[in-house]
């Protein structure tokens, strides 16, 4: 260790209690930051994944305007062949076609208005988690079978079970009266009440028959292996749209605009809070380093009269601060990783937050994960502000006059 380094290190420990208190402030902030940021990243990831996986997929091909109005007439013509040709062209992507309509579903005892989705039973499981969430019975099969799967809440409200029949009443594509009797073959439970109460799925062929769709549907859902891959493949899919069609391809952000914004809103309030924490730590460091410079005025006076330049002293102070900051960085990061890992193993559930979590498709117990980024980002900012805070006391040294300095004690 060179002499300047050693000097800085010794100076740091002149006031043990003070140094530990300053390090303590950094540790506190860093531990908290690592934990909170890891938690946010984990939650955001889950929110996006769960929301998109449930139903939306990464992209959808729709008629213009359908996204906002979801009108029956805003159709994708010849949807099954379109999906098939896309499947051939993009083997890495999972692709399924859907139709969507509103209908009054009546059982023996009850009638409710619900959303009916026509799905391709072989492909739907690849783009949506709902087929995998069947808790009773099975998913729909075949192209034209008059079978239906309903959400658990809907089944309860309609007082129906597997094997019961439902009458669907609605209007077809041409506005004419549409009616059908379908048999319940499965009940799914996604845990999202709105979905479980309002949605039922039937094979797309049967859907097209019932609602006089004439081969048309409403959405082609596309899932890529990852979010990044989805972004990359989007322009190719746009290019693959049948010539002359006015179909549009929406990415997940357009389909679930609330998702990114909710994350954005959450992030901005979180960053406000983190900013305050960092500033408070910076003040703590400023205080300590200013004290440490002021109490050494006499000493600095002596070494300056011996020929040391203010710049050299300033560097000494900055070096001391760097050491201080590094201790806080390392200890805080370790603390944060430990805390995060604890909740990574045991899962984190905040009492009272369950319903809030459900709104964002989050499970009640979240298993946190500390990534290198989430660990390093907070402590780095704290470290940066630590150095910034020490700049004032370090710069003060330039104003120091050796003779005057020696006179103070």
């Amino acid at each position, binding site marked *: 260790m060179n002499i300047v380094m050693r000097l800085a290190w010794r100076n740091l420990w002149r*006031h043990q209690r003070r140094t530990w208190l300053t390090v303590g402030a950094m540790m506190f902030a860093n531990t908290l930051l690592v934990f909170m940021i890891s938690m946010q990243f984990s939650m955001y990831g889950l929110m996006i994944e769960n929301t998109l996986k449930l139903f939306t997929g990464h992209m959808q091909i729709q008629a213009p305007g359908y996204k906002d109005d979801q009108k029956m*007439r805003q159709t994708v013509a010849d949807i099954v062949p379109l999906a098939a040709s896309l499947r051939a062209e993009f083997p890495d992507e999972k692709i399924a076609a859907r139709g969507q309509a509103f209908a009054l579903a009546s059982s023996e005892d009850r009638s409710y208005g619900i959303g009916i989705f026509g799905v391709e039973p072989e492909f739907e499981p690849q783009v949506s988690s709902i087929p995998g969430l069947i808790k009773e019975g099975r998913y729909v099969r075949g192209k034209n079978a008059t079978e239906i799967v309903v959400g658990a809440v809907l089944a309860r409200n309609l007082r129906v079970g597997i094997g019961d029949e439902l009458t669907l*009443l609605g209007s077809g594509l041409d506005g004419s009266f549409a009616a059908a009797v379908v048999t319940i073959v499965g009940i799914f439970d996604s845990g999202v009440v709105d979905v479980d109460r309002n949605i039922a799925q039937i094979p797309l062929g049967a859907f097209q028959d019932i609602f006089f769709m004439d081969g048309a549907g409403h959405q082609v859902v596309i899932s890529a292996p990852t979010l990044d891959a989805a972004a990359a493949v989007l322009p190719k899919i746009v290019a693959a749209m049948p010539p002359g069609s006015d179909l549009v391809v929406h990415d997940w952000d357009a389909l679930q605009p609330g998702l990114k914004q*909710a*994350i*954005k809103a959450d992030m901005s309030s979180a960053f406000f809070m983190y900013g305050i924490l960092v500033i*408070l*730590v910076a*003040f703590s460091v400023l205080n300590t380093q200013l004290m440490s410079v002021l109490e050494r005025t006499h000493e600095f006076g002596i070494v300056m009269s011996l020929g040391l330049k203010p710049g050299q002293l300033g560097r000494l102070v900055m070096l001391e601060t760097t050491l201080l900051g590094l201790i806080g960085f390392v200890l805080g990061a370790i603390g944060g990783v430990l805390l995060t890992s604890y909740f990574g193993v045991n899962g984190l559930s905040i009492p009272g937050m369950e319903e809030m979590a459900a709104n964002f498709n989050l499970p009640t117990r979240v298993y946190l994960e500390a990534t290198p980024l989430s660990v390093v980002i907070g402590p780095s900012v704290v470290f940066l502000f630590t150095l910034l805070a020490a700049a004032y006391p370090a710069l003060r040294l330039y104003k120091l006059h050796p003779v005057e300095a020696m006179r103070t004690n």
Partner: protein
Amino acid sequence: MRMLPVLTRLAWRYLWRNHRRTIIMVSAISIGVWAMIFMTALSRGMVDQMIEDGVSALPGHVQVHNKQFLDDPSVSNRILISDAELSRTFDSADFKAWASRVKVPAVISSEYESRGVTLLGIDPVAERAFGYLSYDEVEGRFLEGVDDNSIVIGRKLADKLETNVGKRVVLMSQDPENEIADRGFRVVGLFNSDVPGYEDGNVFVGKKAAQKMLRIGDTTTELVFLGDSYRNVEPTYDRVVASIDGTLDVKRWYEVATYLGSLLKVMDGFVMIWMIVIFLALSFGLVNTLVMAVFERVREIGLMLALGMKPSHILGQIIIESMLLLSVGLAIGNVLSWATIQPLRGGIDISIVAQGMEMMGAASVLYPRLYVSDMILANVIVLSLGFLASLSPAWRASRYEPVEAITKVG
């Protein structure tokens, strides 16, 4: 007690002996306190609005249903008390407002489209006081009475149905025998609402018209009562419970809208945690400052002890010094937060994340709410935890031996 003025003067003077350190610390405390109150006011503003909107859309602070209704919202599970009898019970009971209404799921169809909605058969006169809709701002007109055979729907729903004022729509639901009950209505008004989802999901018809369509005579599915405020529903709740058949299900708003209820609790918890976290971040600097302040004047402490001051006086002096430091910071922090929140009272436009807020159930204009109780909480937390944090340095200071302190070198 006699010593208080002496100790306070000493503490105050010592505080400003090292004015740089004190200014830094005061700034830190001020910023911390400002952040505590400012952040709380913003969050309160958001959550309060969510709750108020949510509660007013319910509507009513206390609701009465058939025991099965909330789980199975069908006309079969209606309240089997006639409107006439309800009127006898409640009209004279001097509630701020009450209403009986028909509320069932239904499908609404125009010539082009169908949608699932909640059908509300209401008495527009009785429900005006609930304030979930401003009747006068309805495009066209609102319902005129219980007999009104027209329908009022949301602007957004009208767009989706491609219908408009003057056109006809069909409502479909079920009667108690599960026969399809349907009827055509003429759209006479379109309403707008700030409450997310409200415009798409609710349609209003006259109560009698709804009863007739659903073939339920003069019974309804829901009774709603307005209390003084959503934070004080107990008195209303008690009176409703006392005056109604025990087989019915009487619920406070936060039991009906559990999401909103838990939100209120989560919010209170968040405010507390946020304030404590900020304080903890401050506490290191505070203790540090006190430790340094004691360290610098060990000799003087020795002198005071030698002159006959008791150790408890030294303890008191350091604690007072800490309290003064915190009080100055608090004063500035309080003023600062008031001064920054005041200009924002007109609301902060956060419409760039409007749909995100909608997912949370919040509106896109944020009105900060500065509660006196939150301000008091912040001050109490800072002072009481600050007191605890200063005990250790103060205790150490009071344990010095006078001779050693006086002869201390350095």
